């Protein structure tokens, strides 16, 4: 992958195909608002929750903030601007046996090089984003990481395999752009105890 062993990458593509589901969606679609938003109607700007439980999980790969990737001989670490981090082990270890681990919102990942492509397999996802128990799903995620354009772009193909959820494997690709060499990682600050953070409805200023 990146000959310098690290870099900051920002997602470019968000035009995703729709998966074919094995059963109806897990949650009903959100009902449309009963009336159009008026000039003085309040907006819901946040649900007040900081992600301190790792609920964001693999959505960090889709986050508008840049990802910081550090590559070493035995591991690739992908960090975000919040607390979420992914660990891709390249030291030859096997995936943990089913039932031997608690869930992780980012799963357990192992990878190996296939020429210039990094193949990664991940298991150990929770049954739901808010699941606090040890139950894990049977979902497998296969990723393929490859550089292009002289290392300026990183393409990641995600393939989800879960017979209980998908009729057939669901595949999509994100393309990331490498940020300039002097870029540095930000820290997205969030304080669940801040009243402004937890205020779910912010009334507009009254003139």
């Amino acid at each position: 992958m990146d000959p310098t062993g690290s870099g900051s990458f920002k997602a470019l593509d968000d035009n995703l195909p729709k998966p074919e589901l094995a059963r109806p969606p897990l949650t009903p679609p959100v009902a449309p608002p009963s009336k159009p938003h008026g000039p003085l109607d309040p907006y819901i700007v946040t649900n007040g929750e900081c992600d301190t439980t790792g609920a964001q999980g693999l959505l960090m790969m889709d986050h508008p903030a840049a990802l910081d990737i550090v590559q070493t001989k035995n591991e690739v670490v992908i960090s975000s601007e919040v607390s979420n981090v992914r660990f891709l082990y390249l030291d030859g270890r096997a995936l943990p046996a089913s039932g031997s681990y608690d869930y992780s919102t980012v799963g357990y990942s192992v990878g190996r090089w296939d020429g210039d492509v990094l193949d990664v397999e991940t298991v150990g996802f929770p049954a739901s984003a808010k699941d606090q128990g040890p139950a894990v799903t049977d979902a497998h995620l296969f990723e393929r990481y490859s550089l292009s354009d002289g290392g300026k772009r990183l393409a990641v193909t995600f393939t989800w395999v879960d017979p209980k959820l998908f009729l057939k494997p669901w595949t999509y690709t994100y393309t990331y752009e490498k940020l300039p060499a002097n870029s540095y990682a930000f820290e997205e600050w969030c304080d669940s105890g801040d009243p402004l953070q937890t205020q779910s409805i912010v009334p507009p200023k009254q003139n």
Partner: protein
Amino acid sequence: MTARIEDAIATYDISVRRFKIIRVFSGGLLIVALLLAPAFGPVGAQTSSELRQPKLPTTLDAAGETVPDISGMWMLLFDGANIPRAQLSPSVTPNDVITHARMDAYAMRWCNYVGTPFLMQSRFPLDIQQGRTETIIVAAEVSTARHIYTDGRGHVDPAQFEPTTNGDSIGQWEGDTFIVDTVGFSPNRGLTSIPGGGFKTATSHLVERYRLTENGSKLAVTFTWSDPNVFLTPHTYAFLYDRAPRPTWARKVACNPFDDVRTQFLSGAPK
């Protein structure tokens, strides 16, 4: 009579760890040298000094030079800390200490990022991965990763950098020591207390020195804090990490600030 050294014969006696070198000189002279040395490993062509050299893991830095490799999972055991008491500046009042203790209690209760230096005392193994242009340190506790840039850059312009719980870190190797320089700490985010006394402020300056010891099985780190607003003299303490057994999986621990049981445990008197 000219001595001519012929082939040397070396034997290794495991039971007493002595290295015997028998040299045979032509002309009838026979000299037996008995060396006492803590020799290890195979015998034959290696000298005792070569056998004593620790074989540390190495990697390449941004310039392509070979440097020690501190990558791995590192545990801070119960006896791995040497923390002297800090000498605080007279300008630090008891009220300052109380204020920062309350700030830390708030940060803990609301699952704020713990930041540096707290994450370096993690109760779980730290994941340190040393790339060529960046070394990243990840702790299990609620925290963003530490990013230590080793590509030769200087610190970010303070006018541009928004202070964080981990600060702005740059590093370089000097021989077998990795030196990390950090500024840009947030004075009021995360846990601000420093081991041994004192607390982080906007003017805090941290210098760390990382060095592999005991054939790479341990990682010695010294932390030196300088801040004229807090410390009378630079405050230094040391941690000695052990390498975690393989395979150890890094993890991030969930923290739910809306867990009532947790909140009651942290907020009230112990029951």
